[in-house]
């Protein structure tokens, strides 16, 4: 169980403070798939970063009762001058995962071949996404944070992501952030809509989508 307890987030801009998230409360149970909808700039990614623990809320708290991934496909956590394999080693050490066991999966999933031994800065953005995704899957988390996965990679890559996440790891909890309604409808059991800093939760995904469509039209 992850509990988001009254989380607010204020960013200080030149035009004064901006409240991006306003008293957000939600819970994610084991195995639950939560979709978060919202327009660009609604605070979706901020919420995901706060849930992952990478960013602190201005007030409120997040309680982790299970292990949570970093935002999937997030590539900023790489060191460009290191090879893909060195980055894998680093991630395995940080999360206490077995490098030797993870290696075959990462090689197979990322399809980077000899490039795994090249510095990450030589990769194309699609290659970085494949590596980032492979690394996050290689470490076994109870809850995956998926931020706009559909915006990177080609359809083949999406297919593989789908197999790994929604078939092989369907018992895990997931928080999926997207502005693609179809993706949320396909994968989630419930939906939340971020609107003007507030989170509106719906047990029924279709009700959430209808609300989102009505508000964003």
């Amino acid at each position, binding site marked *: 169980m992850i509990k988001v307890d009254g989380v607010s987030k204020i960013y200080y801009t030149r035009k004064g403070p901006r409240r991006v998230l306003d008293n957000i409360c939600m819970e994610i149970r084991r195995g639950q798939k939560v979709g978060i909808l919202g327009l660009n700039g609604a605070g979706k990614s901020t919420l995901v970063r706060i849930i992952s623990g990478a960013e602190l809320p201005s007030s409120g708290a997040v309680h982790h009762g299970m292990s949570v991934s*970093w935002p999937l496909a997030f590539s900023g956590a790489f060191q460009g001058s290191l090879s893909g394999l060195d980055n894998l080693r680093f991630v395995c050490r940080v999360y206490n995962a077995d490098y030797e066991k993870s290696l075959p999966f990462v090689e197979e999933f990322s399809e980077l071949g000899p490039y795994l031994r090249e510095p990450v800065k030589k990769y194309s953005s699609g290659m970085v996404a494949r590596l980032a995704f492979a690394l996050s899957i290689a470490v076994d988390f109870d809850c995956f944070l998926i931020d706009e996965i559909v915006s990177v990679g080609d359809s083949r890559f999406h297919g593989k992501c789908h197999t790994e996440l929604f078939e092989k790891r369907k018992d895990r909890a997931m928080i999926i952030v997207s502005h693609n309604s179809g993706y949320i409808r396909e994968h989630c059991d419930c939906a939340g809509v971020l609107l003007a800093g507030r989170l509106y*939760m719906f047990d029924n995904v279709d009700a959430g989508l209808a609300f989102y469509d009505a508000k964003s039209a």
Partner: protein
Amino acid sequence: MPECVNTVNEKTLSWSAPRRQTSLARSLVIQARVIYALMMREVITRYGRDNIGFMWVFVEPMIFTLGVTALWNVYEISKGESGMSVTALAWTGYSTVMLWRNATSRCAKAVEPNLGLLYHKNVRVLDLFFSRVILEILGGTLSTLFVGLILMGAGLIVPPKEPVIMIGGWFLLIWYTFGVGMIVGALSERWEAFERLYHPVMYFYLGISGCFFMVDWLPSSLQRLAELVPTVTVTEMMRHGYAGDAVHTYEQPGYLCVFCLLLTISGLLLARQTQERIGRH
């Protein structure tokens, strides 16, 4: 929780499952793992896998110390009036400089290029500082040991008379380095200009650090002041430990402990503030 818009879990709002508190022991294990991962990463980034790799960590300061020892001998920086040879003075003095200078300057601007790593929630600002300081401590300590062995093997210095005092001084230096490292790391993240000012200040400090003199040589008016310089206690202890009663030294280990304690507290507070500042960006 008033005003929570939450239809999913209204029935479970009285959630009271025991919050899984991470025990101190477990936190230490995680932190050790993270620091180790950061150290390995730093070694590979800095030295790569080619040629001697990790060994550069201590070979680099060794070359420095041996070079400086040779130079001091050429210039005969001291005539040996102090009961110690030039070579012994260089070894007991310059080794300490290599440690505090390398370790603290590596902490400057350690945060910004590694911001992405903080996405892994177990990686914290403090770990970035500690991994760098520990790496330099490893390098500096191995280098000092090897240089000592080389010089002893060549018959240029004799084995230390009271090694325990040397080791004590070395540990105080390590503590001092941790404290200063955290402060430099935090302040250089806060103020762009700090790093630019730190390098010249460190250079001036080198002159009074105790590396180039023994307190005994100074006029008595300056001796009181010199004793207040934290690293002077370290170099005095190194030389006391090396030469035993042949030299008269003026170390103040109690004072240095208090000094290091204050550095540590300020360093930890500043590192925490940095962590929060970054998290609230």
